[in-house]
Structure formats: structure tokens, C-alpha cells
């Protein structure tokens, strides 16, 4: 299945693009998507603990299963205001 991964701020810089398509096996979780991305961009490893994930606009846990066509947003610690 294919999911769209959105990254922001520091994470966006680390993966060199605000948006990436990931090809994952059916049943893959957010954690699997993160691992696939971190294999390509090892600097992500240090960011895992402070990153939150949102699937199709809703915050989800990393063990959440993904579905084909999902939009996964990876959110570093916020700094607005």
C-alpha cells in the first residue's frame, strides 16, 4: 500500500522534503512507516521520542495501523504563539 507522509519544521529539513510517498506492506503501522523513513534518513532516530503522529488529521499512537491512501503527518514539538 502507499501512504503520503507529511513532515514539518525540523523533521521536514531532515527528510529534505515536506511530502514523501512511502510504499509499505499491508497492515503496516505508523511505527513501520517511521522505521522505513528512518532507514533512509538515520538522523530521524534521535527525533522519535518527541515526535507525534497524525493520520488523516487526527492524532494517533504509533501502533496505529495504516491503510492505503492514508496521509500520515509527523509532528515535532510545537512552537507557535
Amino acid at each position: 500500500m502507499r501512504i503520503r507522509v507529511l513532515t514539518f519544521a525540523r523533521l521536514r529539513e531532515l527528510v529534505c522534503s515536506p511530502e514523501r510517498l512511502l510504499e509499505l506492506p499491508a497492515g503496516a503501522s505508523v511505527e513501520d512507516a517511521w522505521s522505513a523513513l528512518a532507514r533512509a534518513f538515520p538522523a530521524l532516530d534521535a527525533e522519535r521520542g518527541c515526535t507525534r503522529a497524525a493520520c488523516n488529521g487526527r492524532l494517533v499512537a504509533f501502533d496505529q495501523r495504516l491503510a492505503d491512501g492514508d496521509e500520515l503527518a509527523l509532528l515535532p514539538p510545537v512552537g507557535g504563539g
Partner: protein
Amino acid sequence: MFAIARDPIGPHVLDEIARAGDGGIVAFVGVVRDRSDDGRPVDGLSYEAFEPMALQAFEDIARDARERFGDVRVGIVHRTGSLRVGDVAVVVAASAPHRAAAFAACAYAIDEVKRRAPIWKKEAYADGSARWRENTPA
């Protein structure tokens, strides 16, 4: 009103959240400071937002403010893009029949924007370096 603004935020924001018959509006206007929290001279900022989730967060915050403080209306506008020292970064306004609720709702809403909204800030310094800065829990 809830908005992510790519262009400078003007005073019309207050008109949009005001409601005829309300007794008062309390506004917080966040402006780019010339120093970082750790004292480094700041040249400018850039903000980026995950817009759909940020707008949803603003709506949730306004709804939560009504639940907590009663008859208040909250508007939130946040800038994105490059800002200079002195530029308006965020406006949070609360309109209510009585000032106590308006003050309380405004303070609550800006705290929650800083805590919940998927918005990120990169500080640029006079020496040409830059860092992403995260909000510390209140």
C-alpha cells in the same frame, strides 16, 4: 474567526470577532521579540503550520473556552512565513458580556495555542544561524 495568515495581520481581526451587545473584548497580540528566551539577539522568525490541523485546534480551543468560561467568543489568527522583529505573530481575542470571562478566556486560549496548535517557529539570529524553538510546558 480562525485563520492561518500568510500576510501581515491587520486590526480588522478585532472587528471580526466583536459581537454587537458584548461588553468587552480582550486581545492578546503576540509580537516578534528582539531576543530569544536565552538572550540571543533575534533577527527574525519563520513560522510554519500544518494548516488543517491548526485550524481544527483553534476551533477546539474556542469551544473549550466556552465550556470553561461561558458566554465568550474566541478568535485566533496566526501568521506563517517570514517575520521581522516587531511583526504581529498571533492575535487571540475573546469577546464576552463581562470582562472577567473575556480576560480568562483570552489567557486560556493563547496558552492552549502555544501548547496544542501544530505550528513551528524557527529563530534566525544576527550571526546568520537559526534554530527551531519549541514551547516549554506552562
